[in-house]
């Protein structure tokens, strides 16, 4: 525990202090107030209070759809919370303000403590108190040994303690010893570690990015980290504009999952190939076995296997004999059974006239089940593994609206085109693998295979190594700070001459634990008994 010294009351001056003095005084007082332990406590509380809404309310950064839903459901209250940044707590002004104040307070308390630390590391143990029996631990014996022998024994016993021997009046001598300096070291390392962690955590928010992309698991479609457009979604840090992403390419060759009999996934894996650095020029690919919990770490980025899904393969044979085959990813709508939905869209080959083209586009929409299970005619899936795939499709013909310039989801058709009547349903049927259906104009659609895809996440955070380093330092410091006990011990030897002229020595040992850690008693008792005993020469 630190002892705060109250500065001496300045002499009262008859005149008013100048403005500069007053401002300086104000600044000094603010600084002192801000860096006091009590303020730190209050700020710690405020920080924890401020962090809580983030756990209780939906957060835009984690789930924006749910956030909008929440705001809509709560009327003016939701709007108010939104305006007060309660849906983005960790980037809000008030959270940042508390965070920053705490950091200032931390720096402010660390600086003087470091100075104090250096000083106390050099200082000698304090003088032996005059009356050792007032110490919380005290032991007194009279032994038939010389003071020198007792002191020598004490020096040997107190190896590892910082100690100093002093001469007092009338041949009385004493040793002051202190131990456990590592506690203060640990405490400083802990707090500095925390400071470093917080600073680098904040820096990471500036320079990191995160992107998600779906890649077919058949090696056909390399993904290159060449820009934001390569991603399906991308979350840049504040200082990332997407122009200087770490260069690498990868392709996914396959995906495999293992399930329990109940359909619970047990294991996901995927073999991929990647190239970075020189390989990008030579064209060499290196293999990697990607698993959940085991990302690929290259070029400062990490690549994660997040999820997987299916891409039903359809071949459309037009009446003129031309055909087209496509396998576009459909998205899982049921995470347990991987029943998926999607829209596979076709242009008629050989049609160049855009007017004509827009009348004859096709979309195959509906449901895909990896293990089909039919309730009457309704398709569901009973297992997430590819055992008995089937689709239930609606085939739409007409203008998909792809030329309108508006972006389209790859999983759906543009509903407004259907509402307008530009896109009409021309067939509805369930298909098993290898089955086909025929449209009114003779076009045949065959469900002739299933491809798999994986969802990958690319993460980039140049500061996370530093954060880890500081976290480890912090933990080590914490251990030192909590386990090491700072304690003092004094030995005083007083020669006495008894009537029969024997030389005897009174040995007094006193002890004081400087931290409120219990457990000094036993150690003290051991030492206090051993020293006089070892000093005896019999």
């Amino acid at each position, binding site marked *: 525990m630190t002892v705060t010294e109250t500065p001496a009351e300045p002499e009262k001056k008859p005149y008013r202090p100048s403005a500069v003095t007053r401002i300086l005084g104000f600044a000094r007082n603010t600084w002192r107030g801000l860096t006091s332990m009590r303020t730190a406590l209050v700020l710690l509380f405020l920080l924890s209070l401020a962090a809580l809404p983030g756990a209780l309310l939906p957060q835009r950064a984690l789930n924006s759809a749910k956030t909008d839903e929440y705001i809509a459901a709560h009327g003016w209250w939701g709007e108010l919370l939104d305006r007060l940044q309660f849906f983005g707590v960790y980037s809000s002004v008030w959270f940042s303000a508390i965070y920053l104040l705490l950091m200032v307070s931390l720096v402010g308390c660390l600086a003087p403590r470091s100075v104090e630390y250096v000083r106390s590391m050099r200082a000698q143990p304090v003088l032996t108190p005059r009356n050792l029996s007032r110490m919380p631990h005290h032991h007194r014996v009279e032994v038939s040994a010389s003071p020198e022998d007792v002191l020598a024994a004490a020096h040997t016993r107190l190896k590892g303690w910082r100690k100093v021997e002093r001469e007092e009046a009338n041949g009385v001598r004493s040793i002051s010893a202190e131990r456990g300096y590592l506690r203060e070291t640990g405490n400083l390392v802990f707090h500095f570690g925390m400071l470093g962690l917080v600073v680098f955590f904040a820096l990471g928010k500036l320079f990191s990015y995160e992107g998600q992309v779906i890649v077919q698991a058949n090696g056909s479609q390399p993904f290159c980290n060449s820009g934001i457009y390569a991603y399906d979604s991308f979350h840049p840090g504040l200082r990332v504009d997407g122009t200087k992403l770490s260069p690498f390419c990868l392709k996914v060759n396959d995906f495999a999952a293992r399930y329990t009999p109940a359909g619970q996934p047990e294991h996901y894996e995927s073999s991929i190939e990647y190239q970075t650095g020189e390989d990008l020029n030579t064209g060499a690919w290196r293999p990697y076995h990607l698993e959940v919990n085991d990302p690929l770490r290259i070029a400062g980025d*990490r690549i994660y296997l997040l999820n997987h899904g299916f891409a039903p393969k359809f071949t459309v044979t037009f009446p003129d004999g031309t055909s087209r085959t496509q396998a576009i990813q459909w998205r899982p709508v049921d995470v347990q059974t991987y029943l998926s939905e999607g829209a596979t869209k076709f242009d008629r080959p050989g049609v160049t006239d855009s007017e004509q083209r827009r009348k004859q586009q096709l979309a195959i929409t509906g449901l895909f089940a990896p293990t089909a299970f039919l309730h009457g005619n309704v398709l569901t899936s009973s297992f997430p593994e590819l055992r008995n795939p089937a689709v239930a499709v609606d085939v739409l013909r007409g203008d998909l609206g792809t030329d309108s310039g508006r972006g389209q989801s790859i999983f759906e058709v543009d509903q407004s085109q259907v509402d307008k009547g530009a896109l009409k349903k021309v067939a509805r049927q369930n298909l098993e693998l290898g089955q086909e259906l025929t449209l009114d104009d003779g076009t045949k659609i065959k469900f002739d295979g299933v491809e798999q895809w994986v969802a990958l996440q690319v*993460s980039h955070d140049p500061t996370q190594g530093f954060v880890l380093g500081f976290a480890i330092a912090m933990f080590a410091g914490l251990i030192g700070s909590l386990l090491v006990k700072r304690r003092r011990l004094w030995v005083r030897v007083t020669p006495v001459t008894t009537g029969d002229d024997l030389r005897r020595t009174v040995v007094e040992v006193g002890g004081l634990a400087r931290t409120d850690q219990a457990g000094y008693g036993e150690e003290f008792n051991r030492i206090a008994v051993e020293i006089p005993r070892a000093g005896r020469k019999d």
Partner: protein
Amino acid sequence: MPINETLSRFSDWSYTTTVAIYVLALLFFLIEQSFGVKGRNAAQRTRERAKELVGAGAPVVTESTVPPTAVTPDRVGRAERIGRMGMALTVLGVLLHLSALVLRGLATSRVPWGNMYEYVMAVTFIGVVTWLVMARRFPVRHLSGFVLLPIVILMFIGGTMLYAVAAPVQPALQSYWMVIHVSAAIIGSGVFLVPGVASVLYLMRSAHEKNPKKFARFADRIPAADILDRITYRTTVFAFPVFTFGVLCGAIWAESAWGRFWGWDPKETVAFVAWVVYAAYLHSRATAGWRGQRAAIINVIGFALTVFNLFFVNLVSVGLHSYAGVG
């Protein structure tokens, strides 16, 4: 790896029996607490001890070994014997508790803390063990009922509302980090239960000392505030670094499983808040004017957050940590 149904059934039986035994022990302790001379004796002893310390002008609280439960043989009353039986029952309960955990682990061939039911089972186990250790060192046996009460409640909720059949865990959980991170979280949370209860008792006792009318019926059987304070500090100082370690390992694991080491997921957030609150507790003990009651209040808040994190975050909110395994 298939599930061994037989072992899993044995585990369930052990669990139920454990709860029953704890309830019985709880009754025994309540009897001792209500009628025991021991409680009063202990209170008396600690009061005298406190006086001695103050008399010595001790600037720092230091520990002297607590005298062995010095009850003269002819004064071992019936309540005292009932208390000892309660203790024996609790030890028996702990052994069964342990076997319920081990059997679960053997049944599923993995560490037995993959869903909330198992987690609650493990946390309460640690809580009881911690209490037994404390009760050996301090004369607080007759207070065991206050610890067993939340334990029994938690285990009851765990065994009824949260029960999940033995099953393997999903891919994201299959990592050695699961063993390290979750066991640190369990040990931390389980040990925190003891200072939480001790702080509540501390608050009752010190309210009583200020105004003897408050909690008059049993507060004078609670040992002096200073013993409770020491139990609280000792256990918190043990649990805090373990909990810190758990959070750090969680961050390392999250980096390799979810793509970021910290994402303000609800569970992460509440863990952070609880961590800050316990840090505030440690600070409050070094801050004049915050020692004693305020520190105790902070500790109670910390434990409330720990429980909140277990139940609310897993059951109500949706985050990456929602592995509760309850329908």
